[in-house]
């Protein structure tokens, strides 16, 4: 049964399995084991990032394509929901139409960029996606009549999902079951389904061809696979999943804006998570996103304490400033590419193999 759900791709390491079970249980019961808005927000962000990073891993870790346009697709999905709900009455139809339009746009863009740039070398694709994505972000922040510009747009959601809605009279384990909790479970279930879909995808024959392309493209081509076609497919699928993740994120935040949805910071976050969690395994996305988002939300306050403690020392206090936490992550990123390119998950699996 479990074997079937996970598409035969088991964690293959006891500590990894334990970590995954803990993460899944923690996310599944997050509204009831924590209290307040902040932990729930963290949990929802983790869910969305797991899917976003896993879909990026389909490109980077499984196919060996470096793309910088992943936030663009994430943003398209988010803006689809956001503009759909902001322009009309907040109904489910508006969400549906917004998501469908966003998916069509994401697919078309992924196809065009893929056809243009995936025929040539990987480095060319990385550069072109960077250029296209940054232009898209500029466009989204400048067309303020349509997208709300730099400020973005806040919008209301269908009544069932709004915080004012109460499903049950009484509190359950100290939390009232309101629209926010219902939204959380929609996000959670959506992310579980998308993640399992990606897991299914990479363990299918299609996924094996992608891995073959990553290992040796010439050989894959010599075996009769049209590698360009496979790479374009992988690109389109990753874009669609990223757009859906963006839609869920917008639904949760009830806000879309260029900085949170299209900013280059999101792209660097994704890169850091993929590499630190482990490239080429979907579980890397789960472990990486969880650690990263928790660190982002809670480590910063720790750094603030360190910074105030060291306030006499000139450079060090600056370096420990909470805004500088990307510095340490960047160092960790570079080191992890050198010393454990397979990431946390790869390390754990290797340890299991040795014992």
């Amino acid at each position, binding site marked *: 049964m479990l074997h079937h759900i996970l598409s035969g791709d088991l964690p293959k390491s006891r500590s990894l399995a334990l970590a995954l079970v803990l993460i899944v249980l923690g996310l599944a019961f997050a509204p009831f084991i924590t209290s307040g808005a902040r932990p729930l927000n963290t949990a929802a962000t983790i869910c969305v990032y797991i899917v976003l990073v896993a879909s990026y891993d389909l490109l*980077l870790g499984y196919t*060996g394509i*470096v793309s910088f346009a992943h936030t663009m697709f994430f943003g398209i999905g988010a803006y689809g929901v956001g503009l759909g709900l902001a322009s009309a009455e907040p109904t489910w139809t508006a969400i549906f139409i917004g998501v469908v339009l966003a998916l069509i746009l994401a697919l078309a863009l992924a196809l065009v960029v893929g056809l*243009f740039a995936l*025929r*040539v*070398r*990987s*480095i*060319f694709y*990385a*550069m*072109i996606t*960077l*250029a*296209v994505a*940054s*232009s898209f972000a*500029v*466009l989204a922040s*400048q067309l303020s009549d349509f997208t709300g510009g730099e400020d973005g747009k806040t919008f209301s959601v269908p009544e069932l999902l709004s915080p004012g809605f109460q499903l049950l009279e009484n509190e359950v384990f100290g939390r009232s079951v309101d629209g926010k909790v219902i939204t959380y479970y929609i996000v959670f279930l959506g992310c579980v389904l998308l993640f399992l879909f990606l897991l299914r995808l990479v363990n299918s024959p299609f996924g094996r061809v992608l891995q073959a392309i990553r290992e040796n493209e010439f050989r894959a081509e010599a075996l009769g696979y049209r590698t360009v076609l496979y790479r374009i497919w992988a690109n389109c699928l990753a874009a669609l999943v990223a757009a859906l993740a963006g839609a869920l994120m917008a639904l949760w935040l009830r806000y879309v804006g260029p900085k949170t949805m299209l900013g*280059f910071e999101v792209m*660097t976050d994704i*890169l850091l998570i993929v*590499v630190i969690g482990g490239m080429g395994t979907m579980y890397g996305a789960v472990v990486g996103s969880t650690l990263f988002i928790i660190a982002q939300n809670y480590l910063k306050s720790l750094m603030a304490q360190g910074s105030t403690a060291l306030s006499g020392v000139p*450079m060090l206090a*600056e*370096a420990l*400033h909470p*805004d*500088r936490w*990307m*510095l340490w*992550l*960047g*160092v960790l*990123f*570079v080191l992890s*590419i*050198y010393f454990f*390119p397979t990431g946390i998950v790869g390390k754990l699996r290797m340890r299991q193999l040795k014992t």
Partner: protein
Amino acid sequence: MTTNAPPAAALKVLPPQASADALPAAPRDLAPLLLVPALILLMLPLVGSFPTWVTLTIAGLAMGMMIFIMASGLTLVFGLMDVLNFGHGAFVAVGAYAATMVLIPMRGWLEVDSLLVNLGVLGLAIALAMLSTALLGWAFERIIIAPVYGQHLKQILITMGGMIVAEQLINVVWGAEQIALPLPASLRGAILIGDAAVEKYRLVAVVIGLLVFAGMFLVLNRTKIGLLIRAGVENREMVEAMGYRIRRLFVAVFAAGSALAGLGGVLWGLYKETLSAAMGGDIMVMIFIVIIIGGLGSVGGCFIGALLMALVANYAGFLAPKFALVSNIVLMIAILLWRPAGMYSKSR
């Protein structure tokens, strides 16, 4: 398939002096060269007024020169060693910030209304910026890039990581606030040529850009080092087999390219008059578009690409401001439809 021996008669037809003379020159590819003048002339009737056209053209040329200075090092490094440094933008930012260490303490000298003093201070700032980015480039090559030669995927990731770290370090060293970078007193304002107002600083940028281009052109085409670099771009193994240490050459080119990025950073910082650590990332996008248009690894293509991009951006900003937002991408797509690997590209 049968092998046909070439008919003996055909061999005799060849002109006998062919072997005695020098090799025939390779056919020159002139079409991209004509693009820039064609664009400039085409825009004259569209802009309508001659002085405006002059102002726009010089603004475009100045911006193009600055972008060329920043991009040339990157494209040369790519051509020579097949390394694409995604952290190049960070060098631009570091160069600009290093220049503030001269320009801000010596602000008094910049306010003196004497061209010589102003240029002297500016020269000192540029020298410091280039020196520090050259050193940074040297260290970056040694520590970050050297272990990942030949692995494109890791190169992209690791130079990206280097960019993140460098950007954050700028914040640590120089503080996270934006820094205002005033122009020297004698370079402020505009001069009138006929009816056209041209900002003085833009003329300076054009002159520096032309000097850098001429210098690079001469070094690459008239010196032994240039010969080795060009030979290395063509065929690295062959140069190594002849006994030259191409590793050393490469480190030198990398450091020189980084120094140029630093120079470009100073010019760009003075052009924008404010600095922020994120400037590297924004510039990186323009640099990438330019070297994609020019063809990866080609300095000449990079020059034409930079001028084209900046001119199109300036004209578009005047004629159709909304279109200016995407003019870079449209230009890139147009060029790639014409030549899928950029204007001058030897390799795919």
